[in-house]
């Protein structure tokens, strides 16, 4: 495809790509740079797109900018792992610490729709106690939000994404029925189920953001399993095919290939707009409110890069916490081989799950929890895994790949604790826009290690119980990043309040995974979207009281 949206912007001249019709367009409202809009939003992923949609539907004027392209999934996505690296954020970054993070495919996205364009669609609610982790469970920090309120927002997001899930969910307080039914299990998922039954713990079909029945012009899932490299059928309910089309029809403007470099503040200490780079030049969009939703690395980077004399340590940073308490989630796996063919790559990668160790606290020598899911690595990823984990290459790698169809695996999403030393700071090096690049420092703590050890031992037992052979452990992997601008009850111990509003600059908001005080053992996107829905409701309520800057 010569132009797949990566070279020149597609959303302009009053129209944006229609993701549901090849070559089609939908009309789009446009604002001029000089016109101060009610909200300019930086980033259109799980947090930004959801908020843009909701605010536009509430009648606010909204412009949402994304550094990435505006893809047309039906046309631009190839069933080719190498080609699809175009979906990742691969700009320069420096990583260090005892356990440096591997940044890219597994923890970033750069596109309209953000990381959700190639996420694995696992859509979980948090365990209620996690919102009060410090008081109820004795670790991490409390969220300033009550779980019952979140429960209602989770429902809103599940409906908006037509999540397909089990008829009854085995853990946690009751939740409404998922809007769509669960997908059929593949052999990898049945292997997880048999392991759980052998060890006497519960399992269920994973609630997934991919369609098990048609929805409008989006097709149901075809089970080809290219989910983490983008979905070319639109079955995946990414932000790109859900919130963004809604946002457009409610009057929001989306600007693709628009990299924000700096938030401008005035002498009163209020935000007045953003400097962004598009079509080879720097521009300035005026706004009454600025929302940052760039993911847990780019969000603190932008706040730090926007320092002024008045805010020398960066915006919203009077607590000194911007960039701190970065949390990855542990992503260790145990692999084995079955005698029979498994073909684990058929279908979405994680069709079955157990949240047993998220809800059960007995028998743990660590704080926090983890879920584990069945796996379906694509061939190139699997070859890489073999090459890195076992140093296989050449003939031995080819030999190993012949057994690919028999591979079965279990992988955790595990809670890591917030630590101030795990953080994003600015390096002196600069990127292609001339902006200082982020330095990402990460080290596991003892609790993280104990959780990982527990999960590996347990999953190894689960695989032995179903007679898998040649069981081995993939020790070093992490996924989803959160934290770095935590929400809380007090200005000295958090960056934003429960409404995602900065304590220091009342018209600066942060609305993405950065605001998480803790991460739990569940994939974060549903929670990010629920928080965004709540934030939109709060902004509407506050604006009615005259407490939002709209002049």
């Amino acid at each position, binding site marked *: 495809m010569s132009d797949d949206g990566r070279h020149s912007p597609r959303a302009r001249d009053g129209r944006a790509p229609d993701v549901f019709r090849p070559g089609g367009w939908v009309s789009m409202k446009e604002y001029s740079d000089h016109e101060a809009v009610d909200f300019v939003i930086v980033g259109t992923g799980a947090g930004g797109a959801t908020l843009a949609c909701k605010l536009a539907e509430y009648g606010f004027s909204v412009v949402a900018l994304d550094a990435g392209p505006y893809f047309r999934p039906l046309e631009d996505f190839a069933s080719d792992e190498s080609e699809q690296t175009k979906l990742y954020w691969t700009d320069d970054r420096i990583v260090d610490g005892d356990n440096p993070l591997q940044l890219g495919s597994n923890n970033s996205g750069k596109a309209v729709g953000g990381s959700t364009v190639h996420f694995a669609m696992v859509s979980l609610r948090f365990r209620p106690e996690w919102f009060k982790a410090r008081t109820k469970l004795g670790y991490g920090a409390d969220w300033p939000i009550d779980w019952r309120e979140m429960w209602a927002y989770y429902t809103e997001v599940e409906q908006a994404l037509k999540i397909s899930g089990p008829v009854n969910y085995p853990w946690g307080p009751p939740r409404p029925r998922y809007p*769509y039914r669960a997908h*059929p299990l593949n052999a990898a998922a049945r292997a997880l*189920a048999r392991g759980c*039954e052998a060890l006497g713990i519960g399992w269920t079909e994973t609630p997934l953001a991919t369609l098990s029945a048609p929805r409008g012009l989006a097709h149901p899932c*075809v089970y080809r399993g290219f989910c983490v490299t983008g979905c070319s059928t639109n*079955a995946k309910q990414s932000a790109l095919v859900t919130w963004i089309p809604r946002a457009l029809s409610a009057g929001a403007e989306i600007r693709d290939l628009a990299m924000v470099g700096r938030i401008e503040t005035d002498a009163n200490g209020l935000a007045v707009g953003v400097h962004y780079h598009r079509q080879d030049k720097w521009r300035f969009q005026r706004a009454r409110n600025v929302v940052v939703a760039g993911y847990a690395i780019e969000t603190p980077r932008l706040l730090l890069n926007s320092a002024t004399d008045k805010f020398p340590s960066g915006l919203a940073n009077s607590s000194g916490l911007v960039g701190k308490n970065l949390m990855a989630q542990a992503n260790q796996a145990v692999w084995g081989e079955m005698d029979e063919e498994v073909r684990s790559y058929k279908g979405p990668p994680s069709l079955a799950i157990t949240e047993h160790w998220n809800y059960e606290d007995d028998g743990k020598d660590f704080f926090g929890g983890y879920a584990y899911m069945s796996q379906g690595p694509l061939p190139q990823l699997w070859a890489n895994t073999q090459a890195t984990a076992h140093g296989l290459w050449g003939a031995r790698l080819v030999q190993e790949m012949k057994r690919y169809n028999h591979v079965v695996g279990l992988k955790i999403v595990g809670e890591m604790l917030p630590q101030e030393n795990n953080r994003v700071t600015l390096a002196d090096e600069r990127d292609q826009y001339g902006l200082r690049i982020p330095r990402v420092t990460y080290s596991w703590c003892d609790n993280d290690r104990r959780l990982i050890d527990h999960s590996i031992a347990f999953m190894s037992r689960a695989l032995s119980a179903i007679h898998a052979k040649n069981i081995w452990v993939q020790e070093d992997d992490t996924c989803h990043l959160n934290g770095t601008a935590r929400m809380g009850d007090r200005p000295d111990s958090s960056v934003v309040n429960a409404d995602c509003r900065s304590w220091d600059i009342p018209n600066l908001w942060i609305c993405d995974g950065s605001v998480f005080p803790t991460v739990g053992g569940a994939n974060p996107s549903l929670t990010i979207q629920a928080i965004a829905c709540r934030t939109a409701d709060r902004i509407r309520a506050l604006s009615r009281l005259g407490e939002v800057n709209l002049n």
Partner: protein
Amino acid sequence: MLAASVLADSAVEHYRGSFKNKAMLTPLIVAGLTLAMSLHGTADRRPMAHQARDASYLSAAVTGLLGTGFHIYNVTKKVGGLSWQNVFYGAPLGAPMAILLSGLLGFCSERVRANGGRRRHRVFNLPAGETVATVTALGLLGTSGEAGLLHFRGAFHNPLMALPVTLPPIGAGLLAGAVVNGGARPRGLARWWMRLLVGMGFAGVGFHAYGVSRNMGGWRNWSQNILNGPPLPAPPSFAGLALAGLAALELMREARNA
């Protein structure tokens, strides 16, 4: 008609299962035979029951029972046992019952035929019209249950998906009403309702065809989407049952007028 629908549906579904088990051919042969026999019966003008036809109808009934057994076994041996997952995606529990039904209905029609011109037809010494009406009513309920299950699997994403779970049970109720009243009261509504169900059965094919088109690639990708999408041959089984219902009402009318 029911036999034709069963034949096509089980052919498609068992083809999808690549006939993994040899027994998966049985329903095809039996439903094929039932269909052939009833065509034969229709063409045959002699007013007597035919042994070959009887034999095939009864074997259809037995196949239906055995098939149900097999399908239950298939579902319960899967991990998770009798769970929504396996009831949705395992071997359909209700489907083989349709063969049983087509056998039973065929058998009944042979008895009616054997009675020749007599007005009071009897099957196993029961009044024929009532028997056929009862079998049909049960068939409508069962088929409706099956449609309900599969449409629930599809999350009733289209409101029209509610039709086959609401209209047929009402039809079954009307047939039952006719049986209980001994046909004393006017059966106009029941007859009218059976015609509605015939229409629904055929319209259903159209809706299922639309459903197929909504899968990736639409009809251009027919070879995959016919297997993935809603089953085209399923809805006419309602039409087949409703036709049997009409016949039953007619028999009851004749019996009363005799």
